[in-house]
């Protein structure tokens, strides 16, 4: 580590904080964690501190060591990792000096943890009441005291506290409710420190706004120190008092939130900040009027699973070279719609016309030409590639099937990879040798290899880091410039405001608003759209040298986004 920016601007706590400093709940001093057997430093010489009632935002991309750091605060080490240097103080306790038994007592009381996915963190076989009482694990309390405390904490996270609710199982709750139960579990023991590992990543913006508000008020009220781990600068900017930026295991920047946001010192922080898609509510260019028959016309489409109706009366059209965004929260039916277009969801009725010809419900009953011209990119790049096939074969498989045996297979692979901005040498790799962003590029390369006219993108950036998202969006824009039409399905309204020509807002299976992106963003007519815009974390770049992003045209926007690539 060449520079120590974390000491330069830390306010409210001294840099080499000892536990004696009043108000400091957590102090980490020169922590180094290595992975066995390669002895790679996962965290190198990290020092941070958090005061009572404040939240530290720990930002970094996947693999930067932020989760490892978060778990170390509970003295939990992942398999084959080891602390080789530094100290962690929680309150007045040095974690390294504790016995196994003391660590167990520490967890849940002094330090609590809120995991990323509440669905997998809650025990599906335990009723909520049992689960919450278990989290309290304090033998000095009587039954009724425990029950009172559980009810109290449930009220605080704005959940019902009646008997019927306590007898429910986790699967009977929505994702947002589950996450609030996880928060209640963390706060039930009145911890000094709470570690939040991307607790809102899987949630819709509206739910995310509620959960963030709950976390903030709870930390203030209890005087708990929070460590909020995230890859999303927009969320952290909204919530944190201090921000620490991690990059490849090192702390590259640490300071008060407003200072970091307005005057980032490190190049990487700037890149992270600029990668955040900003919600643009004005300054959209009017997309050129498209005349003639649209490439894809959906009219009066309704779809469902069994007897459940998911979509009702959908009308939508995509013209050649146009990007139409389909915006909706989880459960709004947007994936069902995109899968119907791709021929993967068969149970639908209504008109689906592609280039003047009706599309059959099943991909197997469509012509090879139709299948070639409509390609689909999946949400999760970790599942969309066959782990047993080389990238080369992943790309050539669909090509051989839809276009025919190529004369120069190497050329086909190289061209497809090049369009997805990957070097041709990646053809020899297996998916597990690729990062998440690279995998998604391979998925795009596989889709564009057959030269389709319409690319259906189903939440293709939601499984990726914000910085990688920006690169993928840039890639999509360049494909669009080449004349490809995009049906872009997402729940991220900020992303939509930057990429789309036209937007359809989907709510509970119906399109509630449909128009050009400028219209919808600047003058939303439906209250649902207005709520979506209001719940998106507002975030503005204010540091000197940052591109003035508001009011710029779409083109410059794209250049600003990729400066870190």
């Amino acid at each position: 580590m060449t520079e120590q920016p974390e000491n330069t601007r830390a306010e409210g706590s001294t840099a080499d904080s000892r536990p004696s400093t009043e108000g400091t709940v957590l102090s980490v001093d020169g922590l180094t964690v290595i992975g066995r057997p390669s002895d790679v430093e996962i965290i190198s010489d990290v020092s941070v501190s958090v005061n009572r009632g404040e939240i530290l935002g720990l930002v970094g991309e996947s693999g930067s060591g932020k989760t490892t750091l978060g778990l170390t605060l509970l003295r939990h080490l992942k398999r084959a990792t080891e602390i080789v240097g530094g100290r962690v103080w929680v309150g007045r306790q040095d974690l390294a000096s504790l016995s196994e038994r003391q660590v167990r007592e520490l967890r849940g009381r002094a330090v609590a943890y809120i995991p990323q996915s509440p669905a997998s963190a809650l025990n599906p076989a335990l009723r909520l009441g049992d689960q919450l009482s278990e989290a309290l694990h304090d033998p000095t309390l009587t039954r009724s005291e425990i029950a009172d405390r559980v009810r109290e904490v449930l009220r605080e996270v704005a959940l019902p506290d009646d008997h019927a609710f306590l007898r429910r199982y986790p699967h009977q709750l929505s994702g947002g409710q589950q996450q609030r139960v996880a928060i209640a579990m963390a706060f039930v023991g009145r911890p000094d420190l709470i570690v939040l590992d991307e607790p809102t990543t899987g949630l819709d913006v509206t739910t995310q706004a509620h959960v963030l508000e709950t976390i903030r008020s709870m930390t203030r009220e209890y005087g708990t120190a929070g460590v909020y781990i995230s890859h999303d600068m927009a969320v952290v900017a909204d919530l944190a008092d201090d921000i620490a930026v991690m990059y490849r295991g090192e702390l590259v920047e640490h300071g008060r939130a407003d200072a970091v946001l307005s005057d980032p010192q490190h190049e990487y922080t700037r890149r992270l900040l600029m990668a955040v898609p900003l919600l643009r509510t004005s300054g959209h260019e009017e997309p050129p009027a498209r005349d003639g028959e649209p490439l894809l016309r959906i009219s009066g489409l309704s779809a469902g699973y069994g007897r459940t109706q998911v979509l009702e009366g959908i009308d939508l059209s995509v013209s050649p070279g146009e990007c139409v965004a389909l915006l909706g929260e989880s459960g709004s039916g947007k994936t069902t719609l995109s899968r119907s277009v791709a021929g993967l969801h068969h149970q639908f009725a209504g008109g689906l016309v592609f280039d003047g010809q009706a599309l059959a419900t099943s991909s197997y009953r469509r012509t090879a030409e139709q299948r070639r011209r409509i390609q689909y990119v999946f949400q999760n790049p970790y599942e969309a590639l066959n782990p047993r096939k080389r990238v080369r074969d992943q790309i050539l498989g669909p090509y051989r099937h839809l276009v025919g045996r190529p004369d120069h297979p190497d050329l086909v692979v190289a061209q497809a990879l090049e369009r997805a901005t990957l070097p041709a040498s990646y053809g020899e790799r297996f998916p597990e040798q690729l990062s998440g962003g690279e995998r998604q590029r391979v998925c795009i390369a596989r889709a564009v290899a057959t030269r389709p006219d319409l690319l259906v993108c189903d939440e293709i950036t939601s499984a990726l880091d914000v910085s990688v998202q920006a690169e993928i969006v840039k890639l999509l824009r360049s494909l669009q410039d080449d004349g490809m039409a995009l049906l872009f399905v997402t729940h991220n309204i900020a992303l939509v405001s930057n990429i789309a020509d036209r937007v359809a807002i989907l709510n509970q299976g119906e399109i509630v608003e449909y128009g050009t992106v400028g219209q919808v963003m600047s003058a939303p007519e439906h209250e649902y759209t207005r709520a979506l815009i209001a719940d998106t974390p507002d975030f503005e770049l204010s540091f000197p040298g940052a591109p003035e992003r508001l009011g710029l045209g779409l083109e410059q926007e794209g250049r600003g986004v990729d400066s870190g690539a």
Partner: protein
Amino acid sequence: MSGPSTSTTPTAPVRRRTGLFRTAWRFGRTKVGVALAGLIVLIAVVGPFVAPYTPTEFVARPFESGADGTLFGGDNRGRDVLTRFLWGGWTLLLLAGASAGLGVAAGTVIGIIAGYRRGWVDDVLMRTNDVLLAFPQLIAALLVMSIIGPKVWLIVAVIAVSHMPRVARVIREATRKVIEQDYVKAAEAIGLPRGRIMAVEILPNVTSPLLVELGLRLTYSIGVVAVLGFLGMGLQPPTADWGLMINENRQAMAVQPWAVALPVTAIAILTVGANLITDGLSRAAIGIDRGVEK
């Protein structure tokens, strides 16, 4: 998806994940298993070439131990025990290998089809499987043998059929996990024929449970073939066969123990060895499925 500690340094050279075999080899039990099973296979394969006599040659009096020119004496007819032992292994291995291979292959095909096609295909295949599963393996074999008579192809067929539903169940479950993955949907979206999807997208991704099943079924096959031989429903005299040897010589076990001890020990070692290998493979497969090293 946040911060997997294993990929901290994006610049580090990317290494391909170690395969199932190599992971399994790291377990001590796998090495012991390979040594044990390898020893018996070696005896069975090389045996016929180094045997001092032909398997039907009379070289001693019945059950004579310590006759001249024999290491372990004579058997119930006065044939050389060592020679019969060296000759009797390969038939057992061949029958066991063939029936396990056929059974696993058939079970895999049925399991993948049932898991992928679902619906009525799944119901018909799996309910038929349940009917087959209702017959105990050995009883079913004995029943068929006593009706049709002991024939080599029949032994293989009966054991293979009895393996099939058990393998099919395991592979069907593995298939269901694989078809949830988007790469299968991606293949469907481009209209790849169902058969190709099963062969190219699904089969390579169920190899871990498949190998474990193969090892397990091989172990069972060895047992069943040996038992059938012992019960007289397997290979017929005068063929040299370990199972048959145990049966033929058991009356004189006190007088001439070698004629029973040698094949019994060999079958025991082979079974233990095959079991250890299977165990190593399944441990490796679990590790790989969880995505953890070691």
